[in-house]
């Protein structure tokens, strides 16, 4: 029943899912860094930075991810020869996809982090200043620890959505799960079985992430 799977070696089934994991991992780190920077801008005292952060989030959030990923390949790579330091076509597609996912997901990370900072009541900072803590101390000891604990749940949702969104990379020929599924489903008669295999793969990837991080966010939530 599963014989046909061994016919595919470019990529193999496991190789395709491994690519999905790699895309998620690197884009996750990238968007966490860029998203946190954006959130910092959105809560900064400088109006211009706040404006830039707001504009970025509202613009990027409203563009389909497919448009962004396709633009990375057809616009950045083909016309501006942005190669991301890659020597061959496959590596280039992989890195461009990560660039696109990072740019897109960062907007959602930014909103999650910002909402976390907003959950910390003003009184906490006022009390911190009253006992003589300076700005860095207030931030490091009072505000950020509470903000990060509030933000685990929303960030877990962003991560799960990112995992599912990496399938869009198939549109620019990155050999991940959706790419392989499209090939298999067109060539084999076992449509239902192939659908079930790939669905199962994504359930395995996303369900534990949701359960573990959901449990963690409940455990670490600041009870108010």
């Amino acid at each position, binding site marked *: 029943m599963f014989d046909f799977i061994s016919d595919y070696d470019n990529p193999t089934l496991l190789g395709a899912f491994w690519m999905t994991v790699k895309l998620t991992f690197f884009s996750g780190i990238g968007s966490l860094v860029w998203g946190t920077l954006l959130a910092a801008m959105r809560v900064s005292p400088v109006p211009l930075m706040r404006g830039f952060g707001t504009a970025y989030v509202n613009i990027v959030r*409203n563009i389909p*991810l497919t448009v962004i990923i396709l633009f990375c390949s057809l616009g950045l790579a083909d*016309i501006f020869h942005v190669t991301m330091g890659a020597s061959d076509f496959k590596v280039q597609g992989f890195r461009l996809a990560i660039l696109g996912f990072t740019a897109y997901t960062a907007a959602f990370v930014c909103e999650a982090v910002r909402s976390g900072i907003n959950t910390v009541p003003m009184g906490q900072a006022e009390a911190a200043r009253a006992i003589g803590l300076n700005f860095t101390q207030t931030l490091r000891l009072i505000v950020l620890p509470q903000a990060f604990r509030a933000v685990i749940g929303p960030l877990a949702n962003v991560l799960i*959505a990112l995992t599912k*969104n990496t399938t869009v990379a198939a549109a620019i020929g990155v050999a991940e799960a959706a790419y392989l599924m499209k090939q298999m489903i067109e060539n084999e008669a076992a449509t239902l079985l192939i659908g079930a295999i790939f669905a199962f793969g994504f359930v395995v990837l996303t369900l534990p992430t949701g359960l573990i991080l959901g449990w963690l966010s409940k455990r670490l939530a600041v009870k108010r």
Partner: protein
Amino acid sequence: MSSVLYDTPGPRAKRRNVILSVVFVVLLLLLAWWVWTALDDKGQLEWSLWKPFTQSDTWTTYLLPGLGETLKAAALAMVIALPLGAVFGIARLSDHRWVRGVAGTVVEFFRAIPVLLLMLFANEVYARSTDVGTENRPLYAVVTGLVLYNAAVLAEVVRAGILALPKGQTEAAQAVGLRKGQTMRLILLPQAVTAMLPAIVSQLVVIVKDTALGGVMIGFTELLSERATLAANYANVIQSFVIVAIIYIVVNFILTSFASWLEKRLRRSKKSTGAVLGVDDIDDINAGEVGGGFATGASA
């Protein structure tokens, strides 16, 4: 202005803010200049490449029909997914354990799978087991994929909407002698739907964005794939991407603004005792998301 992160600025902080603003403006200008010269180097600023967008037949031949298909697929998906989602959302609140269990499994399953996989699968099933013509098949597949995923998301929205109602509503309904079905149909659901409206409208943004997947992966002739045809005619890849992105931004921005306007209005007119489920209450982003939206859809 004071916030949890910084105090109302004094003279020194004000000076520092001015310096930071100036540095930031300079950085932004450098970035803009760099983008401009990069465009110029590749000859992308030439008027001949932008000119098609000032001509009406570019719009009537490519962009508007494409946008029409995008909106058609999104509207169809929403209209079908909403009642389906309501059924599953209510089933998840059933008193019978097996109904709850089955509905819960179905909802969690379809929420865990990327929309793109659902579309690819639906496309193949339509090709092999039905007599849907090749002309309609992409639309059918896109709508099917969107319905399966978004019905699951909307089921969660409906459930949250009903759970957000005060318990007294159910108790009062039972006290006047309504049966379970009547309580749900006459008392809980109408109130829940009002509370959910903003969340439902913002889910539309996710659906609009996700239609783009069908254009690239299964040949649905929506806005993004019309862009490809357009760019093949005029050799204006960058320009067509810019214009298409702007169209998506405008459409989705209108939807987002409408959703938050609705939310404000519902919160203000205190006709219901329950909470209003806002734009940010759907805990899922897709991108077309594949998308979905933690805030407004994410998905892709």
